[in-house]
C-alpha cells in the first residue's frame, strides 16, 4: 500500500507535467494546427483533463498513504508540502472551468510540480505520530489550511502571469528586478531539487567530525559536496573534500552548504537562460502571454484570494484554535507558527481592504499576491525549520 501511494504520486507528477505541456501547446501551437487546416486547438482541453487526472492520482496517493500509515498524511514536512501542492491543483481544477484560461494552467501547473518536487526532498518514510498530533483535528485543521493556502497560491500564479504580461521589459526598473527575482527563486528551487536528486541517486555523503555549539566533538553528514564546512571540521568519510571555508559553531553548516548549492545552481540556470534569451527571463515569457486579458487575470487573482481567504481563516485560525484548546490547553499562545498564521491572515485582510481603494487593482495587487504567497512559504519552511516552536516536528 505504501509503495503504491508513492507510485501514484509519481504518476500524478507526470500528469501535471503533461498538463503543463498541453497548456503550453494550446498557447504556442495555434499556428501549426492552422496549417493542417484544423481550426480548433484542443490542447487546452487535454491540459485540463491531464490536470484533473493528476489531481485524481494525487488524491489516490493521499488516500492510500492515509490507509498505509493510519493517519491523515499531513504530519511532517514532506506530507504537508505535498498536500499543499495537491491542494493547489485542486484549486486550479475548480477555477479553470470558470475562466477557461489556458495561461493560468501554464503558470499554475509548474508551481504545483515544483512544490511537490520540493516536498520530496524531505524524508518521505512514514513517521509515527507524537501524542500531540493524535487527534482527528489533525486532518480537519491541516487539510483545510492546505486547501486554503492552495487556493491563495492560485492568486500567486495569476499575479505572476499578470506581471509577466504587463511589466515593461524594454527598460531596466525595480519592477523588472522584482519579477526577475521571482524567476530566480523558482529556478533556485528547481536547482535545489535537481542537485538533491542527483547526489541522492549517487548515494553521496561526506561525513565530518567537528566541534559543535556546546564545545563537544560530534559528527555531521553532508548530502552535498561541502563548499562550506563545519566548525573545526575534519573529513572522516571517503567521499568529500576539504571545504573552502568553515562556518562558526552556532551556524548549521550543512544547511548553509545546501542553500549555497541551491543559489549557485539557481544562478547557473538563471544566467544560462538570461544570456540564452539575451533579455530578462520573464521578458522572454512575455510574448507567450501577449494575448492575455489583464482584467481577467487580475480578477482571477482577486477571486482566488477572496475564495481562499475564508478557507484559510477557517483552517489556519479557527480550527487551529479549537485544536489548540484541546491539545495545548489554550486556543492561542503566541507560538511562532500561530503568529505567522495571524500575519498571513492580516496580510490578506489588508489586501482585501486595499482592493476597495482605487489604484490598488492590477499591478500593485499582483505584487501583493506574490508577497502573500511568499509569507505562506516562509511560514511553511522558515518557521518550521529555523524558528523553534511547538510546530517544529519535521
Amino acid at each position, binding site marked *: 500500500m*505504501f509503495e503504491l501511494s508513492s507510485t501514484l504520486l509519481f504518476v500524478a507528477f507526470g500528469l501535471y507535467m503533461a498538463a503543463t505541456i498541453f497548456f503550453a501547446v494550446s498557447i504556442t501551437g495555434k499556428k501549426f494546427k492552422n496549417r493542417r487546416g484544423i481550426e480548433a486547438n484542443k490542447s487546452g482541453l487535454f491540459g485540463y483533463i491531464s490536470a484533473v487526472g493528476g489531481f485524481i492520482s494525487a488524491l489516490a496517493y493521499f488516500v492510500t498513504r492515509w490507509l*498505509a*500509515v493510519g493517519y491523515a498524511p499531513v504530519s511532517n514536512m514532506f506530507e504537508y508540502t505535498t498536500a499543499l501542492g495537491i491542494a493547489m491543483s485542486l484549486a486550479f481544477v475548480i477555477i479553470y472551468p*470558470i*475562466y477557461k484560461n489556458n495561461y493560468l494552467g501554464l503558470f499554475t501547473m509548474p508551481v504545483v510540480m515544483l512544490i511537490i518536487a520540493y516536498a520530496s526532498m524531505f*524524508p518521505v*518514510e*512514514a*513517521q*509515527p*505520530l*507524537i*501524542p*500531540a498530533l*493524535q*487527534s482527528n*483535528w489533525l486532518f480537519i485543521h491541516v487539510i483545510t489550511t492546505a486547501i486554503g493556502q492552495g487556493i491563495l497560491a492560485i492568486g500567486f500564479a495569476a499575479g505572476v502571469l499578470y506581471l509577466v504580461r504587463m511589466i515593461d521589459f*524594454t527598460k531596466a526598473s525595480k519592477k523588472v528586478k522584482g519579477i526577475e527575482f521571482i524567476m530566480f527563486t523558482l529556478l533556485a528551487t528547481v536547482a535545489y531539487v535537481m542537485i538533491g536528486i542527483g547526489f541522492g541517486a549517487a548515494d553521496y555523503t561526506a561525513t565530518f567530525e567537528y566541534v559543535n555549539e556546546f564545545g563537544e566533538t560530534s559528527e555531521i553528514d553532508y548530502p552535498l559536496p561541502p563548499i562550506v564546512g563545519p566548525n573545526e571540521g575534519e573529513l572522516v568519510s571517503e567521499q568529500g573534500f576539504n571545504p573552502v571555508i568553515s562556518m562558526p559553531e552556532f551556524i548549521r553548516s550543512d544547511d548553509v552548504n545546501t542553500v549555497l548549492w541551491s543559489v549557485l545552481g539557481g544562478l547557473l540556470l538563471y544566467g544560462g537562460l538570461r544570456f540564452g534569451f539575451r533579455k530578462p527571463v520573464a521578458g522572454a515569457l512575455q510574448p507567450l502571454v501577449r494575448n492575455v*486579458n*489583464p*482584467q*481577467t487575470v487580475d*480578477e482571477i487573482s*482577486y*477571486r482566488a484570494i*477572496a*475564495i481562499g*481567504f*475564508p478557507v484559510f*481563516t*477557517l483552517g489556519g485560525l*479557527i480550527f487551529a*484554535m479549537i485544536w489548540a*484548546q*484541546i*491539545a495545548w*490547553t*489554550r*486556543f492561542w*499562545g*503566541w*507560538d*511562532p507558527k500561530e*503568529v*505567522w498564521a*495571524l*500575519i498571513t491572515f*492580516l*496580510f490578506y*485582510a*489588508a489586501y482585501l*481592504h*486595499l482592493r*476597495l*481603494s*482605487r489604484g490598488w487593482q492590477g499591478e500593485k495587487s499582483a505584487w501583493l499576491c506574490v508577497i502573500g504567497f511568499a509569507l505562506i512559504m516562509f511560514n511553511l519552511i522558515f*518557521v518550521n525549520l529555523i*524558528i*523553534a*516552536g511547538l510546530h517544529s516536528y519535521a
Partner: protein
Amino acid sequence: MNKETCECGHKNPYGTYLCESCGKPLKEDGRLANMRYEGVARRSQTYKRSVVDKVWNFFSSVKVGIWIIVLILVTSSIGTLFPQEMYIPPGEDPSLYYAQEYGILGQLYYDLGFHNLYSSWWYMLLIAALGISLVIASLDRFVPLYRALKKQRVTRHAAFMKKQRVYGEGLSSNADLESVKDKLKSKRYKVREENGNLLAEKGRFARWGPYVNHIGLIIFLIGGMLRFFPGMYLDDYVWIREGETEVISGTDGEYFVENNEFLVELYDDQNEDIFQEALMREDAPVVSNYQTNASLYKRAEGGSIGSETELEHVKDHEIRVNEPLTFEGISLYQVDYKINELSNFTFTLESETADEDQLEEVVFNVDLNDPQMYYDYDNGYQVEIIEYFPNFYVSDDGEPMTMNRVPDNPRIIFEVFPPDTDPETDTGEISMIGVQVNEALNEGHEHRISMQDVELVDVTGLTVRRDHTLPIIIVGGSIFMVGLIQGSYWHHRRIWIQQKDGRMLVAGHANKNWHALKNDIAFISEGTNLPEVHDQLDEEEKIEEDKSKMSEGGSR
C-alpha cells in the same frame, strides 16, 4: 448642513456622490461612477468640525484601518524573532538569558520589552485601535449604505447608466423585454419594473457580509479582553503522584482528582512495521502516549472543606494529550510528568554483635512524602527520625537544608536505640542515610542501617484550566466566519435596463466577480436583441496602453 436637491426631486444629504434615488452623479468624479457604498454621503465626509468628528473621521478611514492592520502585522512578526518569555526554558532569568543566547540583539530585544511583546501596552493599544476602527468604519458605511440600497429606484438617470463599468446602448424597438425578464428570473434575479425600465438584482445580502464579520471580530476581541477580569480565567498546575489525590483549584475545595496510574508508552522500533525506518533514524525512542488514569471525586454534601474522607466518586477518565478530563467547565490536561520519583525506602538493621533473630523483626518503611517519625518494636528496638530533608543540599553557610518538599535527593537522620538503651536519657546511634549515602554522625555504632528496598512512583503534571470567555469567543468567531462566507461566496449583482426616447440603455454592476455578471448579461442578451454591452474599464486600459505605446514610439 444643506441638502442637495437632484433634478429628480430627491433631497440628498450633503456630500452625496450619486443621487440616492435616480443615481444621477452630483459631483464630477471621473469617467466611471464611483459605486463604492453606492455614492452615499458618509458621516465621516460630511462633518469635520468637532473633536468627536475628527476622531470619528480618523477611525472611519479604510486607509487608517489598513495602517493599523499593517502595524499589527509588522510588530507581531518582531515577536517571533526570538522566543517570548513564556517559551524560554523554565527557571532561566530573562534578563540574562536573552543576552546569553542571542548576544547584543538579544539584550536589545529584552531591553525593548519584545520578550513580552504581545502583552505590552502598545501592542494592546494597537489591538484596541483595530477594534475602534472596526466599529466606527462599519457604522460610518453601514447606515447610509443600508438606506441607499433600501431606497434605490428602478428608473435611473441616463448619466448614471453611462458611467457604469458594464454598459451598452441601442435602439429599443426590437428588444424582447419579456424574455429578458424570464431569463433573469431563471437566473434567480429579483426583477422590478417601472415604466418599461427594469432593475434586476441578486445577492444583495452579500453586501452585509463585511459588517457581519466585523461584528463577529468585535465580539471576539471583547471576549479576549474579558480574560483580564478576575474569575474569568483560571490557569493552574498540579503535580499528582500515583495513588495520591489532590484538590482541584478553582472549585472551592469541592472537586478532587486521583492519579491511579501514569504511563508513558513508546513506539517499538523492533516491530517490522512501516514506521521502523523512521524510528531507527531517531536518536531517542519516540513516545506514543502519555496517559494519566484519573478518578474525579466530589466532596459529599455536608462534608467540611478539606476533609478527604467523604468523597463521592464522580467518574474515571484516561487523560491523554488531546483528551482532557472535563467537568463543569474545568478541564484537566496532560502536560507534564516525572518518571521514577523516589517514594519509599525500606530499611533493616545489620550488626555483628546483636542477635540476628531479633534484628529480623526490625524493618522500617519510610514514606518519603509523609514519613512516620518513630518506630518501636516488641524486642525493644526503637528508631527515630531526627530530621528529614526531602531535597537535600548544603547552604552557603554550611547548614543542611532542603530545597523543597519533592524527594529528589532525600537525606534522613536516624537515631537507633538498641533494646538496652533508654531514649529519654541515652543518645542512640545517629546516622545520615540517603541514596548511596550512609554516614555515622556519632561514635560507637554497633548497628548499621541498610537500605533493602526502594519504591519509585510516577508523577503526572496536569494543567487545570477554566475559561469563561470561551462561549463569547466561540460566538464571535462563528459570526465572523458566517460574515466572511456571506461576503466572499455571494456577490451583489445588478442589471439596469432603461428606455428613453426610443433608445435602450443597459448597465450592470457587481461588487465583485464581474465575470459572472458579464456571463449573466450575455445569457439574457442571447436571442433577445438587447444592446451589446462593453466593459468600459477594458476600453480605458486599452486606450492607455495604446497611448503609452505611441509615446514610446515617438521617443525612439
